[in-house]
């Protein structure tokens, strides 16, 4: 039987505001436990929330970037449940009237063009974090995260494979990063993705029972979790045991590589949503939306086609560059400094990415100036240094604040292009290698190559190889 998989995603994204959603506390990730807390985000009695304007602006920006319509009036609501990481015993979120509704994201998956509709984007506050101690019968709570503004992005069930889900999420992440809505760090939890998945025979119109998956902390885990659940459901259908697929929430266990039931629909929590009486409805004026629209930069898809068209890069090169806004900007700045696009792309996608990976530096923090890379490329093209030496200089640029010329100078890497110096070296090598000269005379032309190599060696790689070759040929011919 041919199956079709149906996936919908719910993505939580921490907004990159400086302060929390309802108080002035910092949103810094690295702070000591409970350092970023105050009576408001700790939910002490008598305190009241005051909405962070910046969070609204970022949520609207996200909605616009995801082609949503922005609701001129939306409402905050309370979602009530008991858990120690939720200091007020309710989360301030949106229910009936979200800030953005109806949108879509276009993305590519294995060369196919896909589109997933967005149902809604709403704003809400994050909860704190429980830390379970291994040896002791108690848990600790860190409220630094409590009250950090989030948006929840809910897609329609438009995604048809685990790989598509990953492609969608990568595209979404790039859009959010481009708009500086979030730093989208899955490993730090600033981008979290839950998935609803069901399978059905191909051609069937209606949806089968769906299962919600939680706790996927990377793209790879998302894909693996979905593939595992897809397989589990397909096998149950094939075995005629589809009744065993029940509407439930399952937790992905990365270590065990399987999904584990968390709670069924019957056990689903009763959240007792109702309008938040401490906050007025969120109203957004037309001119505010217009102003936010103007702050949306060129998005990844547009940039991709521009890079292919303007810089004649191939699709896969452009895709890698564009997947990271900072990387694409570094590349483009290097080109604007005067470097040839193709050469610049080779450097960025080759040596630069390699060193960034090695040193675990994000593209946002590249310590090298695009102008330096451009100069370096120029120096290689002019023959001042060899390509090999160029790689060494580039690596050095990460360490020191010096210019390429200074590094070349310090390390004595500049190419020897002086004919006087080179001819002396060539003559010396010819003298020292009479047997090679002899075999050249006997017609073994590769002997000339050997001599060139010896000259390069004698110059410790600094000799201009093109000139050396010419001089060796000339000397041999003249003998």
């Amino acid at each position, binding site marked *: 039987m041919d199956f079709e998989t149906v996936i919908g995603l719910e993505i939580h994204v921490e907004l990159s505001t400086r302060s929390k959603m309802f108080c002035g506390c910092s949103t810094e990730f690295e702070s000591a436990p409970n350092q970023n807390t105050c*009576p408001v985000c*700790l*939910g*002490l*009695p*008598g*305190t*009241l*929330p*005051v*909405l962070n304007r910046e969070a609204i602006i970022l949520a609207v920006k996200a909605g616009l970037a995801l082609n949503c319509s922005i609701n001129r009036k939306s409402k905050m609501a*309370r979602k*009530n449940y*008991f858990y*120690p990481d939720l*200091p*007020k*015993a*309710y989360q301030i979120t949106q229910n009936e009237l979200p800030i953005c509704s109806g949108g879509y994201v276009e993305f590519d998956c294995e060369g196919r063009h896909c589109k997933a509709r967005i149902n809604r984007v709403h704003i809400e506050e994050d909860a704190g974090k429980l830390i379970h101690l291994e040896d002791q019968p108690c848990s600790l*709570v860190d409220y630094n995260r409590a009250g950090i503004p989030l948006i929840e992005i809910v897609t329609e069930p438009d995604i048809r494979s685990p790989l598509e889900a990953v492609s969608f999420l990568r595209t979404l992440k790039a859009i959010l990063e481009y708009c500086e809505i979030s730093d989208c760090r899955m490993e730090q939890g600033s981008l979290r993705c839950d998935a609803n998945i069901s399978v059905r025979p191909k051609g069937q119109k209606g949806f089968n029972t769906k299962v919600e998956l939680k706790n996927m902390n990377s793209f790879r885990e998302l894909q693996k979790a979905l593939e595992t659940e897809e397989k589990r459901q397909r096998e149950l259908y094939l075995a005629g045991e589809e009744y065993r697929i029940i509407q439930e929430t399952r937790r992905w266990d990365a270590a065990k590589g399987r999904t584990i039931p968390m709670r069924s629909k019957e056990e689903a929590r*009763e959240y*007792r*949503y*109702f309008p938040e*009486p*401490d*906050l*007025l409805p969120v109203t957004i004026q037309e001119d505010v939306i217009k102003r936010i629209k103007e702050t949306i930069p060129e998005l990844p898809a547009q940039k991709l086609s521009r890079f292919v068209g303007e810089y004649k890069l191939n699709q896969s090169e452009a895709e890698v560059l564009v997947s990271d806004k900072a990387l694409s900007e570094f590349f483009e700045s290097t080109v604007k400094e005067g470097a040839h696009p193709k050469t610049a792309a080779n450097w960025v996608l080759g040596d630069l990415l390699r060193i960034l990976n090695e040193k675990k530096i994000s593209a946002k923090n590249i310590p090298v100036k695009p102008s330096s890379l451009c100069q370096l490329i120029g120096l290689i093209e002019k023959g001042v240094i060899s390509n090999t030496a160029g790689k060494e200089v580039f690596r050095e640029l990460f360490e020191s604040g010096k210019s390429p010329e200074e590094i070349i100078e310090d390390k004595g890497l500049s190419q020897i292009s002086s004919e006087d110096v080179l001819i002396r070296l060539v003559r010396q090598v010819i003298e020292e290698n009479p047997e090679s000269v002899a075999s050249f005379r006997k017609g073994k032309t590769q002997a000339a190559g050997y001599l060139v190599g010896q000259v390069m060696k004698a110059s410790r790689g600094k000799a201009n190889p093109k000139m050396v070759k010419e001089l060796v040929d000339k000397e041999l011919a003249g003998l």
Partner: protein
Amino acid sequence: MSIGCMSAEGIRKGIADGKFSAEEITVQYLERIKSKDSEIGAFITICEEESIKQARTVDNKRKKGEPLGRLAGVPIAIKDNICTNGIRTTCASKMLEDFIPPYNATVVDRLIMEDAVILGKTNMDEFGMGSSNENSAFKITRNPRDTGRVPGGSSGGSAAAVAADMVPASLGSDTGGSIRQPAAFCGVVGLKPTYGLVSRFGLIAFGSSLDTIGPFSKTVRDCAILLDVIQGGDGKDSTSHTGHYEKDYIHCMDGTVEGLKICVPEEFFNEGLDREIFQLVKKSAEILKDLGAKVEEVSMPVISQSLPAFYIISSAEASSNLGRYDGIRYGYRPEEYENLDDLIEKSRTEAFGDEVKRRIMFGTCVLTSGYYEEYYVGALKIRRILCDQFDELFSKYDIILGPVSPVLPFKIGESPKNPIDRYLADIYTATANLAGIPAISVPCGFSSEGLPVGLQMMGPRFGEKRILQAAYALEQALQLKL
């Protein structure tokens, strides 16, 4: 000098004129509390050291010739659900018995800014839920007019403290009548302001869309002075009003009501109303008429549905607001517990009183899917209609007049046994909270047994000026010996 007949206004003037010091006043009131409160039980916490320190600060200011605040040296009591920095704030609940807030409510900051002296924190029904102060986890409060009777509630301690001359003025909170009903029972003035006029920051929430903070005092002028100090927009409360409103209360209080249009809804005079209260309220309406106001009878049928709507909305919000008391971060925590669920369950079972539990359960129920539409949404609809009908009435009238409580102060231990009957205490007051409009309770006479009776006057949103004007005129005309 007898503090018994001193108004806040008089105290401020006496201190400013150097007749007595703020410290002398504070010490006298503290002594009065010491001798009187063992009988009344109005206070949960007395701030002896802090108040004397604050009084000395005021005296120093005067000595140095610095300008004095509008409440310089005036001793004030604060209901114990209003947060005071460094002073425990209990809500009269075992749950918060040892809770010391690290912040002041905005109203407390504003009082201190005007050099008031906080004398103590007053008893109340636990979390504001009740109409007799019998729901306090700590002790009952007695009505100073007849110590065998309740002072009303939930701000019973604040009302009794003023009535017993233990402070010239106090703050209470009103979610469904909790300022006005105890003011009526104790024979003092109590004002529930327009929702949004006074910041709620630091008021421990009961029903967030209904809660208001307001003053108790002996005189209408003091009430206006206190309101003037505590009112005004606040960046810490998004629901506080930042726009324009009428501030000049004192100047319109000239004893006249000439041209004021007053209406009396017939629904306020139903069969449940005590005969003596009925007569005193009607008499007050006549007096206002004689003073030059236009008084007319009207009908406002939705009033009869407002009490159920009030209980649904207030309990729903309370069930959510009180969720945070889980024994984890602060407040009561049981000695022993098995696991997380047990900790939360035991904390709440052991530390909440019966009335609080009843409302949490009721509120939880009306928000649960399956009931939400019928009860909660239904209540919101009634609230909307009520607001519309008030708007309609206030397009024609300045003031709506009626009783505060259907009954006279009842004897301690004689609250109706059935909760539904107890809830009838709010029947005339809860409407103002649902509509967010201001309402004052002003003494209008005594029953044959000598028990005080209050008159209620409601105004349109931010219409405090007119109800204070009429209340003052009535006060002057009646000249009651309070």
